[in-house]
């Protein structure tokens, strides 16, 4: 394609506070309609909003994590528009003094790091939910104000992305940042993480930006990517025909997989922002800001790089671990108990993840604890149980939360390392399989594997496989 695609993203994220931004109503998702409302979030006359400190600090934390400049003064503004999901007819947002400006976030695409600049980070309130009845000809809509007033963070990037791979990486990196900092639960299916894309095209090598089109209603990361691909093609076709791109807002139609015009620039909203007189401005001093900054944990990207350098893990393994903070924490706690990063990583990325997935559980909900996984690896290394038995013990640990030693004792799984005992089993197997012995003497390698398997079977998997191998070879190679 002769065009360069220029993409910027606006991200909305509901903050993980217990209560709304300006009142004590619950933010819990999924409650019955209009059961989490009060005079403040219903905008009854005479009420005054009071800022939730935790929400404000979460917003500070995200601005700091995105390396924004945080001015020592910030305030809130009214954004006026009339829509029934907005009980006040204005939204309390920020316009003149955004909490954070001019930040950045590093993303990685196919091993290359790219810096995406952040235009601003600000705090605002969520709108209510409109329900459009399905019956044909219905002349009404229904409103549920449970979401109205939930703290909402808006993160606006510069149009620094050029490919859908970069967009994908940006969304994932941002999501992980919000999860790591525990600012949001990022549940897209519940609307707590949403994206809007702005897309424009320009001939390669040209500096001026083309007219940009904004796309809304992107309910999943998959739709963001599809919408951008669709929109880039649509714009390229228009430009190829010599037409111009209208600066407009389009909605993504996920059923027909296309974007449809919502409003043009001429119909653009006039929000008439002005400072919110009901909320006092906020002064942020150095001490407060540094307390917030110190509460930011190591972020996923830095952690991944450290896992590679400190524990000599592959990029692939490190990425699997940092995908979920709880998983990465689990791993690090294991390594603190036993310095076998690679083995522990294998247990976690293969067995632990598989079992969690099968049981549809979060890592934190699993019964097995890091110290127990460490014990399991230790008793394998000591030779108490074989690695085959260990897999069985692990499943039992997942199911019961019992310590591995206890499971081994209860089930009599201790590995047989008695030379005499193993030797007698071997003798029995040798005399019972003369054909296989012949094969072995003729040089068939898998004959040995078969015989080892027979010995293991006879001992119910408890024989020390290394000893079985050595003893068997010793007896056969006489």
């Amino acid at each position: 394609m002769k065009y360069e695609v220029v993409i910027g993203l606006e991200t909305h994220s509901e903050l993980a506070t217990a209560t709304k931004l300006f009142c004590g109503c619950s933010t819990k998702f999924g409650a019955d309609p209009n059961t989490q409302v009060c005079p403040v979030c219903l905008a009854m006359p005479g009420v005054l909003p009071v800022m939730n400190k935790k929400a404000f600090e979460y917003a500070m934390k995200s601005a700091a994590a995105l390396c924004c400049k945080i001015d020592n003064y910030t305030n809130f503004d009214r954004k006026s528009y009339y829509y029934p999901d907005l009980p006040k007819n204005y939204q309390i947002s920020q316009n003149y003094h955004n909490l954070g400006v001019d930040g950045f976030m590093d993303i990685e695409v196919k091993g290359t790091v790219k810096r995406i600049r952040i235009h601003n980070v600000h705090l605002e309130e969520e709108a209510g939910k409109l329900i459009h009845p399905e019956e044909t000809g219905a002349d009404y809509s229904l409103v549920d104000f449970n979401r109205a007033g939930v703290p909402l963070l808006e993160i606006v990037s510069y149009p620094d992305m050029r490919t859908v791979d970069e967009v994908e990486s940006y969304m994932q990196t941002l999501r992980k940042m919000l999860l790591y900092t525990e600012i949001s639960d990022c549940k897209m299916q519940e609307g707590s993480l949403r994206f809007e894309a702005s897309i424009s095209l320009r001939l390669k090598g040209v500096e001026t930006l083309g007219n940009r089109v904004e796309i809304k209603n992107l309910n999943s990361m998959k739709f963001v990517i599809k919408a951008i691909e669709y929109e880039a093609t649509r714009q390229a076709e228009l430009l190829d025909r010599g037409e111009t791109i209208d600066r407009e807002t389009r909605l993504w139609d996920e059923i027909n997989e296309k974007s449809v015009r919502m409003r043009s620039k001429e119909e653009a909203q006039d929000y008439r922002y002005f400072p919110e007189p009901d909320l006092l401005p906020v002064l942020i001093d150095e001490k407060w800001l540094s307390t917030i900054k110190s509460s930011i944990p190591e972020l996923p990207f830095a952690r991944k790089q450290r896992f590679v350098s400190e524990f000599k893990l592959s990029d692939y393994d490190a990425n699997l671990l940092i995908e979920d903070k709880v998983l990465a924490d689990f791993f690090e706690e294991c390594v603190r108990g036993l310095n076998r990063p690679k083995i522990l990583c294998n247990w976690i990325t293969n067995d632990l993840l598989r079992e969690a997935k099968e049981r549809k559980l979060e890592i934190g909900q699993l019964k097995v604890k890091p110290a127990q996984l460490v014990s399991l690896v230790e008793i394998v290394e000591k030779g108490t149980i074989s690695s085959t038995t260990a897999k069985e013990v692990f499943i039992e640990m997942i199911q019961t939360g019992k310590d591995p030693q206890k499971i081994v004792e209860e089930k009599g799984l201790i590995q047989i390392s008695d030379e005499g005992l193993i030797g007698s089993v071997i003798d029995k197997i040798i005399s019972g399989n003369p054909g296989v012995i012949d094969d072995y003497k003729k040089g068939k390698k898998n004959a040995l594997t078969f015989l080892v398997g027979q010995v293991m079977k006879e001992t119910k998997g408890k024989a020390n496989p290394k000893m079985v191998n050595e003893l068997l070879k010793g007896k056969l190679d006489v």
Partner: protein
Amino acid sequence: MKISKKDIRYVAHLSRIALSDNEEELFVHQLSDILSYIEKLNQLNTDNVDPLVYTTNTFNVFREDALEKPLAIEDAQYCAPSTMGAFFKVPKVIE
């Protein structure tokens, strides 16, 4: 300050209200008068005066993230012009 009919129509559109021709005519005059009156303030020299947004010198008023009791549905809906079940009912919303 003179404002035009176009301005009146624009403001009416933003406020989602329909005005008759007579009303447009009326408001052109009324709003122009109001703005001219307010414009008198421009005669004051404010070169050395900082913009003032908030009249109290108070900052950082917060509440803790603590749950409070919500309104009962019947109280929440008490003044609503129209409801349906637990919902507020509004004229059909068109995107």
